[in-house]
């Protein structure tokens, strides 16, 4: 398994980025399919085939392109590009902070996409997305800070090769990250701005006015995002690659389990609980660590 790191190191940075761009959508789409299958089984249904997300996207690409105004698809394209960029940076072993910032920028373009049409449902979704961004962003930055405190580097390559298990130093940060991962994956109880479930109207949120190829781009972006976010989970356990892979898979299944078990929160509760949890688990962990290291 350590061979993977050595292989990665032999490649140039551009090759590593290209590998991510090509492999991530396949992995992300497959994960989305597994998600739907497992969700269905948890509800006592048979569920769609595992390849269903790919079928959906291929179909959406063949649909007629209806746009409300000519700016509508532009932010979505930037959303995709910046998500790919941040993921490629991460898997090339570059700076974790830059990854996080460009991910935030991608999220901003998604919100702009929601605001550039006149549908009230879309606006409501975009407003909720802003609140969600506000809720999860501190914890994401704290994750990078916590990793820096332990390893002394923001470089993903250095963090991944750190000799000691990160999770033992920053379990609180991991718990906090797990909490906001539910928001990032757009799972209940935090799927306020848009949801993948077969609910109606308001729940479609930002995607209300997107159809055909535009919607396909949003789906593909989520695949990239999923792979990137699970990559950060991997970092917490990177001292043992096999354990890290198992824990990443376990985290993914855990999120599905949470999704199936909770009703949707109101935005006030979603926001408050996230910041509270960030403070209690994330910030206090970092303060404790800095006291111990002194």
């Amino acid at each position: 398994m350590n061979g993977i790191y050595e292989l990665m190191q032999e490649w140039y940075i551009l090759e590593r980025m290209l590998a991510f761009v090509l492999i991530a959508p396949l992995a992300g789409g497959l994960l989305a399919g597994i998600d739907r299958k497992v969700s269905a089984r948890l509800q006592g249904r048979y569920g769609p085939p595992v390849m269903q997300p790919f079928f959906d996207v291929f179909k959406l690409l063949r649909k007629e392109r209806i746009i409300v105004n000519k700016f509508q698809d532009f932010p979505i394209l930037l959303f995709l590009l910046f998500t790919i960029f941040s993921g490629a940076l991460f898997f090339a072993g570059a700076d974790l902070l830059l990854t996080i910032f460009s991910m935030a920028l991608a999220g901003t373009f998604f919100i702009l996409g929601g605001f550039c049409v006149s549908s009230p449902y879309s606006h409501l979704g975009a407003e909720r997305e802003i609140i969600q961004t506000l809720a999860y962003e501190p914890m994401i930055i704290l994750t990078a800070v916590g990793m820096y405190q332990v390893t002394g580097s923001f470089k993903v390559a250095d963090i991944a090769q750190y000799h000691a298990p990160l999770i033992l130093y920053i379990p609180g940060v991991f718990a906090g990250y797990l909490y906001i991962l539910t928001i990032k994956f757009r799972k209940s109880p935090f799927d306020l701005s848009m949801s993948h479930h077969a609910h109606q109207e308001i729940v479609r949120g930002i995607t209300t006015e997107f159809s055909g190829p535009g919607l396909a781009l949003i789906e593909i972006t989520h695949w990239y995002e999923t792979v990137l976010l699970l990559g950060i989970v991997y970092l917490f356990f990177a001292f043992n690659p096999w354990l890290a892979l198992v824990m990443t898979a376990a985290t993914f299944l855990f999120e599905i389990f949470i999704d199936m078990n909770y009703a949707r929160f109101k935005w006030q509760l979603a926001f408050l609980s996230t910041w509270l949890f960030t403070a209690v688990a994330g910030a206090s962990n970092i303060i404790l660590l800095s006291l111990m290291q002194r």
Partner: protein
Amino acid sequence: MGWFKRSPWLLHYNATSCNGCDIELIASLTPLYDLERFGIINTGNPKHADIFAVTGSVNEKSRQVLRNLYDQMPNPKVVVAVGICATSGCVFQDCYNVLGGIDKVLPVDVYVPGCAARPEAIIDGVLMACGILDEKYAQKKREKRRGAQIGHE
């Protein structure tokens, strides 16, 4: 090929139906029938939908809504008339206040009879509609190609 057959997304509208067929339509999403195993999702958003399932015997009020929803759906799209009211107006067809059937307003592709239509019949109709979706896409592509050829000449 045949991606439409594998991932048809459904929009449901109740055009003055008695709710019987609507309940049956929703019932086909339940674990017992599970429409999603065919990739069918009940979207509730015309811009995401491929299949328009309509119940009820349309009146003057719902006619505009019906037309509006249909126009917002991106091509290719099909219309499924669910239940005998949507198919022909049934016992209400002579009433002064109903138009009697979806095909008085929209081009209907599949008729699913029954009062109320059984979930099995609805699933059967929707799957038949999937085939028509693929046909419509292929036809459009052919027309486009022919148009391009004429342009070359």
